[in-house]
């Protein structure tokens, strides 16, 4: 690789998949900084925001660590940010899970699945992609349109239909008859509802695409 990514941080606020995300980044031969507070956040230029558990708990942990405003500033200053699973959900405006106000960096609301199928939605599922902006194109570089990703979640940012969705929606998946955002991207802010860190080589490719992305 010719372009070495800028200093990469992984947010550690007690989320269960911090270790898995760290191992995935390390497998790409990048040594990440463990971001635990405002000081460590200042050391990085690019941030992966993992998440497992509830949006309510995630926001509470961020508040307790005084990270809510610093994270918003980090994203608004144009630094690349990738939220994974609950990390993506809290990038939105609000979550039904505990009636939680989220970071409000992207324009979606997160609600519980309302379907007959068993919850959580767990397993490998495909994604309908729509490359709407340069971030979308960068995120999906070298990834087949037929690729599957590993999901585990009971809440999601739902969309009305696969074809009529907002500009930030770059990938839509379906479960139990409901369509939801699998991937979002708006300028420097990216989100993956699936666990890219556990989606095999293709998931690692998406993480690598994020880590090497340069804003045009």
């Amino acid at each position, binding site marked *: 690789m010719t372009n070495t990514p800028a200093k990469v941080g992984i947010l550690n606020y007690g989320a269960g998949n911090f*270790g898995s995300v760290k*191992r995935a980044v390390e497998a790409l031969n990048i040594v990440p900084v463990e971001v635990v507070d405002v000081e460590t956040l200042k050391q990085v230029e690019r941030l992966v925001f993992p998440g497992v558990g509830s949006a309510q708990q995630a926001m509470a942990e961020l508040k307790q660590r005084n990270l809510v405003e610093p994270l918003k500033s980090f994203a608004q200053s144009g630094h690349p940010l990738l939220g994974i699973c609950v990390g993506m959900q809290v990038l939105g405006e609000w979550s039904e899970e505990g009636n939680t106000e989220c970071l409000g960096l992207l324009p979606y609301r997160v609600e519980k699945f309302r379907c007959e199928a068993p919850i959580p939605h*767990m397993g490998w*599922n*495909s994604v309908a992609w729509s490359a709407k902006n340069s971030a979308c194109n960068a995120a999906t570089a070298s990834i087949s349109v037929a690729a599957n990703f*590993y999901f*585990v979640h009971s809440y999601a940012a739902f969309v009305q239909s696969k074809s009529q969705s907002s500009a930030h929606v770059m990938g839509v998946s379906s479960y139990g008859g409901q369509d939801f955002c699998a991937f979002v991207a708006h300028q420097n802010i990216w989100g993956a509802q699936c666990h890219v860190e556990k989606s*095999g*080589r*293709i998931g690692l490719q998406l993480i690598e695409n994020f880590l090497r992305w340069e804003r045009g």
Partner: protein
Amino acid sequence: MLKKRIIPCLDIRDGRVTKGIEFKNNIDIGDPVLLAEFYSQNGADEIVIYDITASAEKRAPDFSTIEKIAAKSFVPICIGGGIRDFTDASHCIASGAEKVSLNSIAPRKPELITEISNHFGVQAVVLSLDVLADSSCPSGYRLFINGGRTATDWDMIRWLEFALPLGVGELCVNSIDQDGKRNGYDLDLLELIKQKVRVPVIVSGGAGKAQHLIEAFSQGADAALVASIVHSGEMTLLQLKEECVRAGLPVRMDW
């Protein structure tokens, strides 16, 4: 569309992967870290690791092996065998597993199911059961523990009715009669269970050819454990999946 999962199962004894027949007469298969990495790069939708002697030896699973596997295998990992309490389960997850599989411990300490699922979510708890046909049980199957060595007083369906509401995300059903025989999964057992439960069901024990997986998936299994059939090299995960595709089943073909 959600895919049917094919899950290689690594039984570990003394740091090596082994495989037995009807839970006995184990033969050496290889190094668990290398095998897990190989399978994860060649189509495994998940990897299950059973520390098959941990329970009997009254020790925790081998966390250092889990960590080594998680550093090389970027697919979901489930750990079973030797999980005695919440601390053991937390260590498994901290070492890189997504799920823990509870078997012998569950009838002895059912509150552990709730403790783990409350903290990590129900998807982190797989209830694994070893069952044997028994006409004296109302459902026709009896629950066994200790690697199939000890009969319990539980009728299988009574056990499920009791245990599932405690916080189980997934069910793994091992047919002791069929284990390692490669005659096919116990489809009567699968049908009985699918009628009773809503959580995903993983079938285990008896896969000898692709047709066995196709039958189980067609009858509603969400996932299938495979061991002998792939460990022996007789069929690859790719070959098994290609057969499933030909049968019109949704499986993950890109990795």
